[in-house]
């Protein structure tokens, strides 16, 4: 029995904060209200803290199987719970690619062994994520896959994408699209702009993303498939999604903390920790992303947690792999950059990291209430810390946020009634 006392409970549906005690027993919430007393229960004082339904990061690369030097299911889950996430969806670009039932089951088995965060595998749209033949989606769904994506690379052939979306719609699965036109991206390594010109690095124009966002919106209309745009990075994409939503197209979208915080200036000094795909964009794009977050065009904040080894990242900018870790800095960045600045209320911030992604993936979530599974994240809005990658639980240390001071950090993560990360 665990009694969380005096916290402000965030209701992401109502958008409210209510001070309430929460009593957990056998992995479920058994009672909520003021002044709960239960002899024998362990009491956690959460006064001054925000108590939220467990957070879900719907865009994570766990790297297992195949790239265990970068991350494993276990280390990724440890990083998740330290970052305040009780659940995550993991992308299929492993080796082999998660394009069939056995691999999906393998990942779930690894997650069970780790016993920390809930893991929701995302299956590949096409076999080997090669963009040619659609994968056995139903088999993966039966094995436990919650959505489909070829994340890391686009489905270039529009015909393939159309058929994949038709098939996914039949199964009721959401297609998560990595929007990138390879012809326009053309081997670029950062945002196309003055910084890329100065550094002599090949640029990726915003149009490389926007062309595909537009295409996939059109295909969502054609097929009726639920479309989720991963890691939106440009003002143009926000505009396209806003317009599509206004017409009732079944499209949702996510933004990463790095895209709403940083610009392409981070590439100065050829800092590979800021090399990410889609690339960090310009100031106007960051402003548009924040506007999209504020007005609801953007549904989800997800990290695109992409761990790499120091050896891989410590190389020439052109040669370094794309990606940065995000699980352990996400909540702090959301609180520092969006909540403290008034762009999001605490309850909406929670919604964008819990019920919204859960609804897209069709997994359990909802306001904390008696009878619900006890997946809970407690955030201390006053806790301030400097990011130190040495303390990360992730194997990846590749973050451009090192030494940045973040305020508003997770202090307690409970999965199934069990505290799996505790700093309280």
């Amino acid at each position, binding site marked *: 029995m665990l009694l969380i006392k005096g916290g402000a409970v965030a209701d992401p549906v109502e958008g409210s904060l209510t001070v309430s005690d929460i009593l957990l027993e056998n992995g479920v919430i058994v009672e909520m209200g003021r002044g709960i007393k239960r002899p024998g229960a362990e009491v956690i004082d959460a006064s001054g803290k925000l108590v939220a339904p467990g957070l879900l990061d719907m865009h994570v690369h766990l790297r297992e199987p195949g790239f265990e030097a970068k991350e494993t299911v276990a280390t990724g889950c440890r990083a998740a719970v330290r970052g305040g996430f009780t659940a995550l969806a993991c992308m299929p670009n492993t080796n082999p690619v998660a394009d069939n039932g056995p691999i999906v089951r393998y990942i779930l088995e690894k997650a069970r062994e780790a016993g920390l965060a809930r893991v929701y595998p995302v299956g590949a749209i096409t076999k080997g994520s090669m963009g040619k033949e659609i994968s056995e989606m139903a088999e993966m769904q039966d094995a436990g896959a919650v959505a489909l994506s070829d994340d890391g690379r686009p489905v270039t052939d529009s015909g393939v994408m159309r058929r994949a979306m038709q098939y996914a719609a039949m199964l009721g699965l959401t297609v998560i699209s990595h929007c990138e036109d390879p012809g326009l991206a053309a081997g670029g390594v950062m945002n*196309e*702009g*003055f910084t*890329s*010109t*100065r*550094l*002599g*690095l*090949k*640029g990726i*124009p915003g149009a490389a993303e926007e062309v595909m966002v537009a295409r996939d919106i059109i295909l969502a209309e054609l097929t009726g498939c639920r479309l989720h745009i991963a890691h939106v990075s440009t003002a143009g994409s926000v505009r396209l999604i806003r317009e599509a939503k206004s017409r009732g197209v079944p499209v949702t979208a996510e933004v990463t903390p790095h895209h709403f915080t940083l610009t392409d200036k981070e590439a100065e*000094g*050829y800092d590979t920790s800021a090399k990410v795909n889609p690339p960090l964009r310009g100031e106007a794009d960051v402003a548009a992303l924040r506007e999209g977050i504020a007005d609801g065009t953007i549904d989800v904040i997800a990290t695109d947690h992409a761990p790499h080894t120091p*050896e891989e990242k*410590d*190389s*020439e*900018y*052109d*040669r370094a792999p794309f990606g940065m870790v995000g699980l352990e800095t996400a909540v702090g960045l959301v609180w520092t950059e969006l909540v403290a600045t008034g762009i999001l209320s605490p309850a909406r911030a929670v919604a964008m990291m819990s019920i919204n992604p859960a609804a897209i993936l069709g997994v359990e979530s909802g306001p904390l209430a008696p009878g619900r599974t006890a997946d809970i994240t407690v955030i201390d809005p006053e806790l301030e810390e400097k990011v130190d990658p040495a303390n990360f639980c992730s194997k990846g240390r590749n973050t451009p946020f090192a030494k940045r001071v973040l305020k508003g950090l997770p202090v307690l993560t409970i999965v199934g009634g069990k505290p799996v990360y505790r700093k309280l």
Partner: protein
Amino acid sequence: MPILKKDMLGLEGLQGDKISLILDTAASMKEILGRQIKKVPTLRGKTVVNMFYEPSTRTRTSFELASKYLSADAVNISASTSSAVKGESLGDTAATIAALGADVVVLRHPMAGAPLLLARSVKCAVINAGDGAHEHPSQGLLDLFTVREKKGRIEGLQVAVVGDVLHSRVARSDIWGFTQMGASVRLCGPSTMMPAEIEQTGAICFTRMEEALEGADVVIMLRIQMERQQQGLFPGVREYARLFGLNHKKLALAAPQALVMHPGPINRGVEISHEVADGVQSVINEQVTNGVAVRMALLYLLTGGGMSDVAH
């Protein structure tokens, strides 16, 4: 305090007095090149390692001669013999260089920023001899030196840079160098070969070469790589030569006695016609000589030189 930083990685942000110091020192070095015995003992016992991950006979030879004229020992490591092909990281290569006792590493690399990466991991001086489409500072400096020598000044001149600006590290170093020294830079090339937002450097962009050349005091032609055609950046050599090649007729639009420059090697008949390349206004061969003097100056200054007068 040393006048220059440990390394010479680019001309962006390099102050005018430092550029002047390099050019003045290069002028002194040039006198040595005119002697019967082109050798001074200055860098005796120092080791200069030329690491070229990209083939470049000109630049490598120029650095090699510069090292030798200053009595340094020059060692060449080229991509075919280096460990790069075996997958050794630049960091490991750096450790090897340090262990070999190099005083200066001259690095040519196809990837922008590689010299900075190397410079961070070695104690010795690093000279960027061209990194991707980023910078080629010794070329920029020799261009400045040539113009200053021929025109007596740089300030107030109109300098046109024509060609594939997008992929040109020479263009970038020239833009920073000439702008810093008070010249105006005009850029001209096919619209497919103009880098994004380049006008933020202060350069003025043209797509019609005739406009770019009008009244220009210096015309710097860039080498066009033929593989850019396969990449679809220009439709063909003939059309390129017609629109962006320098011939007598176009050169006549520039200021009288305008200098014609080219970093070499030249595609004759493509970006520059025979007559212009070999004409009286061409200083292309002087650029090569000046390149050695400028590189001697860099080697001298980066091994600690250039402080002040020391008497007796």
